[in-house]
């Protein structure tokens, strides 16, 4: 997993609430057996017409947002299906950070497994960043994970919360499975005990 330390980039505004993972990556693209290559179909049905033409009004099709690395989104981003193809598609497009007032649980988890930082902020902070994002390339936002700050184009700084363990994994690009396997002895012990107490499992 690629490390996440500090990111300075263009933020795309997506104020719609309840952007679900079916919108982020529609089911016809879930047939892949790979993780890569999904960026071109990110937000496919919002981004392209039925015959594959770009819809000019869609935010990521606008010239100033084509290289966005951050999305500022409406409430409950990533709800619905557990498909990890959603963060894979975001990452493949180049998005490394999503900011919203709330995220759906599974999507939130999936982001951290892929080097994407989802940030939860109060409504007023999201509103402020949404305004910044509306200014496109004139409004580069800097996300500093180490110091847990977001710096806007006008120099104002917002601090954010992040789970310490997840922060550690993101900063160092750590693989969860490797970390868990360090606890293999504890898993062995649990299994031995469970075989006694719940042998039917």
């Amino acid at each position, binding site marked *: 997993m690629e490390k996440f330390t500090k990111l300075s980039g263009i933020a795309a505004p997506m104020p719609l609430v309840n952007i679900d993972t*079916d919108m982020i990556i529609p089911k016809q693209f879930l047939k892949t*057996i790979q993780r890569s290559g999904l960026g071109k179909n990110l937000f496919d049905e919002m981004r392209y017409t039925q015959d594959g033409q770009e819809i000019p009004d869609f935010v990521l099709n606008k010239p100033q947002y084509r290289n966005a690395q951050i999305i500022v989104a409406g409430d409950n981003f990533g709800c619905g*299906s557990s*498909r*990890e193809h959603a963060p894979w598609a975001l990452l493949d497009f180049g998005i490394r950070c999503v900011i919203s007032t709330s995220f759906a649980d599974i999507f939130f*988890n999936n982001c951290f497994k892929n080097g994407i930082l989802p940030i939860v902020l109060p409504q007023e902070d999201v509103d402020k960043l949404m305004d910044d994002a509306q200014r496109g390339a004139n409004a580069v936002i800097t996300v500093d994970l180490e110091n847990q700050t977001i710096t806007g184009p006008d120099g104002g700084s917002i601090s954010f919360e992040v789970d310490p363990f997840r922060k550690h994994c993101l900063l160092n690009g750590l693989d969860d499975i490797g970390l868990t396997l360090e*606890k293999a002895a*504890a898993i062995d012990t649990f299994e031995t005990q469970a075989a006694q107490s719940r042998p*039917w*499992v």
Partner: protein
Amino acid sequence: MTGKTLYDKIWDAHLVHEAEDGTSLLYIDRHLVHEVTSPQAFEGLRMTGRKVRAPEKTIAVPDHNVPTTQGRENPDQMPEESRIQVAALDKNALDFGIHYYPVTDIRQGIVHIVGPEQGWTLPGMTVVCGDSHTATHGAFGALAHGIGTSEVEHVLATQTLIQKKSKNMKVEITGKLAPGVTAKDITLSVIGHTGTAGGTGYVIEYCGEAIRDLSMEGRMTVCNMAIEGGARAGLIAPDEKTFAYVQGRPHAPKGAQWEAALAWWKTLYSDDDAHWDKVVTIRGEDIAPVVTWGTSPEDVLPITAAVPAPEDFKGGKVDAAKRSLDYMGLTPGMALKDIEIDTVFIGSCTNGRIEDLRAAAEILKGKKIAVKRAMVVPGSGLVRAQAEEEGLADIFREAGFEWRLAGCSMCLAMNPDQLQPGERCAATSNRNFEGRQGRGGRTHLMSPAMAAAAAVTGRLTDVRDLM
């Protein structure tokens, strides 16, 4: 000391390790696997030379992609990409030695229907699957939730999951349900009440007389949609109905082990003095047969209501409602009962069980459909066989329904069962998102009886008018 909730008890029984900051390693008793969210996980194991730690606790079945038409055992029936994905699961199941129900097995079906049916899902277990509707298994008093593909790989390799504990939420449905009101109406009404993010950060326990009165099938329908309310999981304390459902199933414990299991299962309830972080109470008598009008499962109204206007909402929901109404092709103020439909889909992990088919057949008996297309997709090969034995299949066929083979089908439209742009569907599935059942397709969620009623009249219908 305060008592424990059911969730607390299951959590404690599966805790392998807890760090100071609360980051925990939770043991997983059952890992269910399907073809769409697993290929990258198995590939990860191959690349790192890892094995499946507990293949005997890992169960795989293809369901999302598989065609539901006859002759599907012939791979040529599938588009190339679907064929490759199902073939990958065939190979992964064989290579890693996990339990497998291929498409040719009568026990094949939707993973969340197969698990309980085969007795893999038992009270007090932790159950995960790379699918958000894993919450279904909570009906047995199991802690069950969806995970992403990286977590699928993590569970395959370690039989554990890194978790932080959720908060406890109680959803109580008091009293009795009125005639024509079902488990689907309960679960949709709860989401209508709490919103799609109302459960975020929580595990929900459903309780109360109306929940107790539900069959196991009904309880699975309720828990299935916990995720649609944002909750990590939904569960219901096991009782005599649960034990009776489980007993005798192929992978349920037997003999002395059954007795030992039963003794523990009977301790699985929330203590009277347990702490709840959030409580929602709804009177069973107040729940009506409902339908969704928009593109979020929280867009729920009684069938007797009218299409709302964007101004009826607040904040970001105003623009979302505008977008929904435009997508759904609806005008504020229009009676829901005047909405004409052209497709009916009965099936899915929400409502593809035998009781669902019985409820729909009851309405359809001796009637004909008044829609362009209607299909029943049983949740498993065994549900299908039972429905044929009970004569339900004949009722569906005579009414004009297509009688399909088991799979996820038009719930998410990954296989050829899809809506065309602008087509409007009465569906018993779980999501009415834009494009969910096919690009431009319009979905109204409802119970099987309500979907059957809509099939007969050609418009959204109050099932009580046909009873």
